[in-house]
């Protein structure tokens, strides 16, 4: 069993708080990603879990056992580093066998020459070599065993680092931005391999990244971190479609979610960018809200002849199957970005005006504090999506 529990972890460097009472439970065999921009404390949390750093307050449990003060090697967790941290003077085989040698041979047996003569060394060494060979074969790096890391490509080094972590069958796999040093193509390939590895080994993975694509594709659950706080922990789809916090909504999704200021103009009505949207959120009339609308939530004009957000086309980005249209809308500071089907390209040109409509249930509402304001009832489907303010 290798579930992981963080209980109110706090960490600060001098006066700078890095982690503010972070609590998180990870199930046995789960793939959890810590996602956040650099400096949000995600790597620190991982290092505390690995035992490389000590928290100022709080408790870490691995498999139900409190591991505070337990040395990294006793935690049964293996780690893959961003830089791979391979020992440059050792061959691939030596790199991979080190964790096993350290655990199975005593200090005398590890001595360079004398060690080999001691009883038991030879048998244990052969066993280690066999296990390393097996792991290397599984990763497709068995032909590289005699080489040194300096003679390997980025992808090969990455595999060796994974192999070194894998070879001792840890209960928990920790990965600190393992793909960020690879080129884009290799990154996609290795992403799939890591996913496969998780399915094959079935152990708990904790993966740190700032790349939302990695987080979304790999994870069972994503934990979004910002400024030392956990904002939301949920499956990728939920993080995307149902964010708890404005910052989560803004961090996930590309192109970024459109954030438009609005005011509750009447019960069940929110006025925004010159139009009024039907809404069933409970907020006082006159309350200021921020509306989050994903670029793909927009429909080109025709949804409702009467109501639409209108603006001037400022920029068109062709992305193959999709079209990103940037729209200048009166009363909205940032250009509104809509993701439309590429077939629509012919009807859109820069400088011309364009109307967009949106389904009310796809609008996310955020309060002044950035928290999500949820509708308590399902919005009525039949209600017109956008109603002109004059209506």
């Amino acid at each position, binding site marked *: 069993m290798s579930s992981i529990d963080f209980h109110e972890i706090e960490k600060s460097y001098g006066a700078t708080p890095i982690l503010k009472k972070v609590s998180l439970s990870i199930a046995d065999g789960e793939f959890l990603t810590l996602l956040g921009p650099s400096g949000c404390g995600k790597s620190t949390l991982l290092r505390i879990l690995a035992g490389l750093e000590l928290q100022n307050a709080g408790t870490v449990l691995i498999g139900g056992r409190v591991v505070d003060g337990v040395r990294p090697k006793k935690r049964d967790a293996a780690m893959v580093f961003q830089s791979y941290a391979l020992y*440059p003077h050792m061959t691939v085989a030596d790199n991979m066998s080190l964790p096993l040698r*350290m655990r199975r041979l005593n200090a005398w047996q590890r001595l360079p020459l004398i060690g080999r003569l001691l009883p038991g060394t030879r048998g244990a060494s052969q066993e280690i070599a066999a296990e390393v060979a097996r792991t290397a074969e599984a990763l497709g790096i068995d032909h590289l065993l005699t080489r040194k890391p300096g003679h390997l490509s980025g992808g090969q080094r990455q595999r060796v680092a994974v192999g070194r972590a894998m070879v001792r069958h840890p209960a928990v796999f920790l990965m600190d931005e393992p793909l960020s040093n690879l080129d884009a193509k290799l990154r996609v390939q290795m992403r799939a391999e890591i996913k496969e590895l998780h399915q094959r080994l079935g152990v708990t993975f904790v993966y740190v990244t700032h790349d939302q694509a990695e987080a979304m594709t790999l994870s069972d659950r994503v934990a979004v971190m910002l400024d030392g706080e956990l904002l939301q922990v949920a499956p990728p789809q939920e993080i995307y479609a149902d964010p708890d916090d404005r910052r989560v909504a803004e961090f996930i999704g590309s192109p970024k979610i459109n954030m438009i200021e609005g005011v509750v103009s009447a019960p069940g009505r929110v006025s925004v960018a010159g139009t009024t949207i039907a809404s069933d959120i409970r907020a006082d009339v006159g309350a200021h809200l921020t509306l989050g609308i994903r670029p793909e939530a927009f429909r080109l004009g025709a949804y409702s002849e009467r109501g639409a957000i209108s603006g001037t086309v400022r920029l068109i980005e062709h992305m193959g199957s999709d079209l990103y249209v940037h729209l200048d809308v009166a009363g909205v500071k940032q250009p509104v970005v809509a993701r439309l089907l590429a077939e629509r390209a012919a009807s859109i040109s820069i400088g011309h005006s364009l109307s967009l409509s949106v389904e009310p249930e796809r609008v996310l509402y955020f309060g002044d504090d950035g928290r999500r304001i949820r509708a308590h009832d399902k919005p009525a489907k039949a209600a017109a999506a956008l109603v002109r303010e004059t209506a």
Partner: protein
Amino acid sequence: MGSVTSIVEKRNQASKTPKRNTGRVASSSERRRHRMLEIAASWLLAGPALVLLIVLFFLPVLGVFAIALTDWQFGASSLAFVGLSNFREVFADEGFRVSLANTILYVLIVVPGTIILGLVIALLIESGKSCRAFYRAVHFLPFMATLTAMAIAWEALLHPTIGLVNQTLAALGIPTANWLRDEATVLPVLAVIGIWQNLGYAMVLFLAGLKSIPRDLYDAADIDGADAWLDRLRTVTLPMLGPVTMFVFIVVALKAFETFDTVQVLTQGGPGHSSEMLLFTLYRESFEYLRTGYGASVAVVFLFIVVALTLIQACVMDKRVHYQ
């Protein structure tokens, strides 16, 4: 369709070929001019250094080689070509052989002593948190100071009756010695002074080397189970210090081979020949006995040893030490 495209292709080729040719002619003459300019610029830039190197290094070395083949005495107006007889004399000379043996023994004490102590001090400073700058400065001072002046201080310390060393030993009840006048102790004592002088230099280089070891490697060692200090040292620190160690090794070995100041100031090679070293022999033969031809042949032997040492070190250690 096919015929149409092939015709178009042919026409394209026809129209392209002559154009490309004229282009090549024009650009090749231009390229040659460009190359000439580049060559001229490179000679112009390298020239001053090259002239200095020839005048200050290669010509004197050649001069030494030439003098070594003559019986020239310093100040004499005549000289004769004597072939290799100077070298024969050098190798037959008991004094030279003792001097060579002393030098090698001295190097064998100073180099490992400096490297090990320098590394230990660097590791201690790096692992401590307070007064780092102070410890660094204190250990580096001897390297900055003039060795001749420092040698006089050492002479006072090692004085048989009023020296601090012997007084301390006597106070502790440990037998004393006449350190610089005893055949058994004089060379080790000079070696200790040599270590003391080079220690700071080795330490500073090791400190820089330690700083450049990626922290990730120590983290990886912790996770892999190599977290005892000896394991960390063997798995990460020492291998990663390889390039620095090679550099320290070469520099300290060369400096040790060239030891002259302490011998000249403290012992004059004595008692007997027991602290005579190569550079001192060279100096004494050339400038005290004025046997310049003989001294030049000692210099040639010395040069061969130093160059051979450097080449061996560079070849052997280069392969084992650089990783990337």
